[in-house]
């Protein structure tokens, strides 16, 4: 293929997507970045240039650090749970039992319904008076554990995490399910014949072969945890007393409650940079695939 023909081919194939993306995503994003250098109430077109003032304010804002902590906690907590559960379930779902077949049909349901429904559902489950969680706890005699899960500082964030995991799990089950199928069955057979038990197989066969997918999954979880918004917004509004405040809810508050669009955009910029950094960090950290170390 001549270089010119190749260039034409590449351009032709890339152009539609790139053009649409540039017009409707990149341009607004760049404009939004520009807004972070202004003081803008977001209610008229008037704005004042203030340079990096918003960023200076951001660094000194204790609530920003608090929100960030919550995002990272959510990432750490939910990713462990999601990884463990989705790998196990993806593996189990491949079998040909009745349970597995049934689960194959329904595991994506939480992903299919909107976050609004998820939030409402979990608010009802966690309701201190008549929620099913407390009802179940009381039924088994653990009534003193029946508290206001979303209303108490120690448990609010974890409750949000639970709802998030419930919603997100299906996607990762699907991802790992597909990935597990790419492992040649003869490799698995060989390992089993060699006497490797489940956990050993997991560590020395499954995980290495799934490395690329695991990396991507982790990046996804990071993005999801850093950008979490709807659940927190609907279930706790960042409360009680900011116990569940996350970057995006704080951002929303600055933009739409405090009419401080410039500051809010600065927060968005910082959040964006952090997400990129986190993703890059994960990709770099997990680049080394143990499998490639072997023959």
């Amino acid at each position, binding site marked *: *293929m001549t270089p010119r023909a190749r260039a034409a081919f590449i351009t*032709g*194939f890339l152009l539609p997507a790139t053009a649409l993306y540039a017009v409707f995503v990149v341009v607004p994003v760049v404009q939004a970045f520009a807004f972070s250098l202004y003081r803008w109430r977001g209610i008229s077109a008037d704005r004042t240039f203030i340079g990096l003032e918003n960023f200076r304010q951001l660094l000194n804002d204790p609530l920003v650090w608090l929100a960030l902590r919550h995002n990272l906690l959510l990432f750490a907590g939910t990713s462990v749970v999601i990884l463990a559960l989705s790998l196990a379930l993806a593996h189990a779902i491949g079998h040909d*039992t009745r349970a597995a077949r049934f*689960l194959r049909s329904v595991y994506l349901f939480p992903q299919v319904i909107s976050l*609004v429904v998820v939030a409402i*559902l979990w608010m009802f489950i966690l309701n201190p008076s008549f929620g099913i969680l407390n009802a179940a706890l009381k039924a088994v005699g653990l009534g003193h554990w029946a508290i206001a899960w979303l209303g108490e500082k120690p448990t609010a964030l974890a409750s949000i995490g639970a709802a998030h995991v419930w919603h997100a799990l299906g996607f990762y089950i699907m991802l790992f399910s*597909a990935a597990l199928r*790419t492992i040649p069955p003869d490799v698995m057979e060989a390992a089993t014949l060699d006497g490797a038990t489940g956990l050993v197989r997991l560590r020395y066969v499954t995980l290495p072969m799934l490395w690329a997918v695991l990396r991507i999954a982790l990046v996804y979880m990071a993005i999801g945890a850093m950008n979490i918004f709807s659940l927190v917004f609907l279930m706790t509004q960042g409360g009680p007393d900011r116990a569940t405040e996350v970057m995006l809810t704080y951002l929303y508050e600055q933009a739409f409650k405090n009419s401080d*669009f410039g500051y809010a955009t600065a927060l968005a910029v910082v959040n964006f940079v952090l997400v990129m950094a986190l993703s890059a960090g994960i990709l770099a950290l997990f680049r080394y695939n143990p499998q490639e170390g072997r023959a």
Partner: protein
Amino acid sequence: MMARMLVAAGLWIFALSVVVPLLWVLMTAFKTGAEIFTAPWGWPQTPQWQNFMRAWQEAGIARYFINSLVVTLGTLAILLPIGAMAAYIFARYPFRGANWLFGAFLGGMMFPLFLTIVPLFFLLVRLQMLDTLHGLTLVYVAYSLPFTVFVLTGFFQTLPQEMVEAALIDGCGHARAFWKVMLPLAKPGIIVVGVFNAIGLWNEYPLALVIMSSDERRTLPLGIANLLMVEQYQSDWGALFAGLVIVMLPVLFVYWLFRDRIHETMIAGALKG
């Protein structure tokens, strides 16, 4: 044996944790507002079919349903081909600056949506695409591209090259090779990406909220959110849950229709590989 039982138990627990809440929503849709709070986990006394009627009227579901359908299908029709085309290039045709472009696509997934909404709004006003179904469709395509390109690129990277190379040797052009050989091979990935996009589009709320202001052009999530907030003020929880059921059912149904297909293609794709 023990392990197998544990696995089965684990599966059933998870399956139930998914199905029970949804069945609960269904059951709750038949209750009166008061019943929902006084006896939330019990059976409805008499099925309140009127809940569904009120939800249908209040949320204007028929009209919104069609809007959502048009926009979702329209978006997929544009998104999947051009997304696959771009992904194919990223996967198999490296060029200078490719990584930057790919990174640019990736970056789009990370920027929180509602801050681009105001500049985007201005843009649509200028293009005279505000409050139009085609405007919303194009915006949806643009915002769905990062995920689509990201996943399909990875997918294309794992597909075997031999068949394409054979076609090229046979004199087939690169583009033709893509449409005739690669794309069919990529069907499992495209189906999965398509399904996920469809679900996200069906439930999309913030963009639709700002872009579509007139009642006739609103999509289903706007209707449901409306319902949620209206019912919060009027405490017509029965109608709210009925509305939720009406909204969830089509998606769940479509998903149910395709569930085996998804699994089939995933397994088939893996076996071929």
